[in-house]
């Protein structure tokens, strides 16, 4: 309906105006009321990394209680998860030498396994290359000569992979170094799954071969080795390494 202004009486105009006024105030209030509520934006559930008001340390992602094992993570296969022989002897005598700088260097690894517990395939080595270039290249350099970018920025230089000591070291030793660290190097078990750690070891063997093509290196897998579980079975959630 169209009303020309001439037909409006002053009275009804006022009534309408006050009605419009009321209405717009109501709309404003309603909008403000909704606008300042964030119930849907911030729901009472834990988004990853959200701070917890309930636990005293503020962490919403909880560690497993001590002494419990999550389903499927028993890690019964010692060789696969530690790279060590059955019943390793912690007191075993290791051979050492002293290098030019006066540091003691371990040269024998009696507790480490000498065969891959996973099948060595091209896929495994490719995966290893991929992972090596993420986690190791920054210090050990592209071919493992120990000249990565972080070393050039002042980090103590790691040994080259291409000396006799490491060429002859059993594969279990490399796995142990990645898992638990070695000297100045920290362990990477928290960020790299066990399957990927074996892939990296296979790639290091391939690097050693590439620098000494005539060499006969041990790339054999143990007879019981299953095909590698691969990245799909990598149920690594960032917290506890597997």
């Amino acid at each position: 309906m169209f009303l020309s202004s001439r037909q409006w009486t002053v009275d009804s105009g006022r009534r309408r105006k006050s009605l419009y006024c009321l209405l717009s105030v109501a709309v404003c209030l309603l909008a403000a009321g909704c606008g300042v509520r964030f119930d849907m934006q911030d729901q009472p559930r834990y988004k990853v990394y959200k701070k917890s008001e309930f636990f005293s340390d503020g962490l919403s992602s909880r560690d497993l209680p001590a002494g419990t094992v999550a389903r499927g993570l028993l890690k019964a296969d010692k060789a696969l998860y530690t790279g060590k022989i059955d019943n390793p002897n912690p007191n075993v005598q290791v051979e050492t030498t002293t290098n030019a700088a006066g540091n003691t260097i371990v040269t024998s690894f009696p507790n480490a396994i000498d065969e891959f517990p996973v099948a060595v395939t091209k896929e495994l080595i490719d995966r290893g290359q991929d992972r090596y270039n993420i986690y190791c290249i920054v210090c050990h350099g592209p071919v493992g000569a120990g000249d990565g970018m972080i070393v050039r920025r002042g980090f103590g230089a790691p040994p080259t992979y291409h000396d006799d000591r490491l060429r002859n070291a059993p594969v279990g030793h490399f796995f142990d170094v990645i898992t638990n660290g070695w000297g100045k190097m920290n362990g990477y078990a928290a960020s790299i799954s066990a399957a990927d750690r074996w892939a990296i070891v296979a790639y290091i063997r391939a690097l050693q071969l590439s620098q000494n093509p005539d060499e006969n290196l041990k790339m054999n897998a143990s007879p019981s080795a299953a095909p590698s579980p691969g990245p799909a079975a990598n149920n690594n959630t960032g917290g506890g390494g597997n």
Partner: protein
Amino acid sequence: MAQFFSKSANNIARISMLAGVVLAGTAFFVYTQVARSSYLTGRYVERQQPVQFSHKHHVGDDGIDCRYCHTTVETTASAGMPSTQTCMNCHSQIWADSPYLEPVRASFRDNRPIEWERVHDLPEFAYFNHSIHVAKGVGCSTCHGQIDNMPSVFQENTLQMEWCLACHREPEKFIRPKSEIYNMQWQDGDLSAAERVDLKAKNKIRSKEMMTSCSVCHR
């Protein structure tokens, strides 16, 4: 009785009606602009972090891969934030007594996490997942911009629904080969339009209808 309104009132009425329409239009335009402004979306805003961590130094200068720190970006919804232990892999040795790193050392000593300020934060009624985007060929820099040039991280895009949908409608305009996902220098022009369409088929990216269905992101 004298006429209450003069003749010019007709014109005033017409002009004020026109002005009303123009005003409403302007108000709507202003509203859409304000809604997309960095004031409301947090775009380009740098946050004060507990440690002055610089992606420019670590990624740009030192060439550390994103996954060294954001370890779960390929496997889970969240990209993952580095633990203090990860920082100490290097900083136990280098810059070990820099005052800038004191919060990191304190966190390591006391076994308490560093509390980073979130930069990207979707409302919790929207679902996002990194692993599928990485697996189907969307690179970090498509969404996060040139992280390797950022001394402190800021949000490069609005993260509004219209932004997500612009890509979900035509993903072939933005995808790249899987080997280039972590390449911060990649430009969309590096691949021809035909190659992108092939790549879309190769990566088995689903149809526009399925990708824009509400339940993909609101579940």
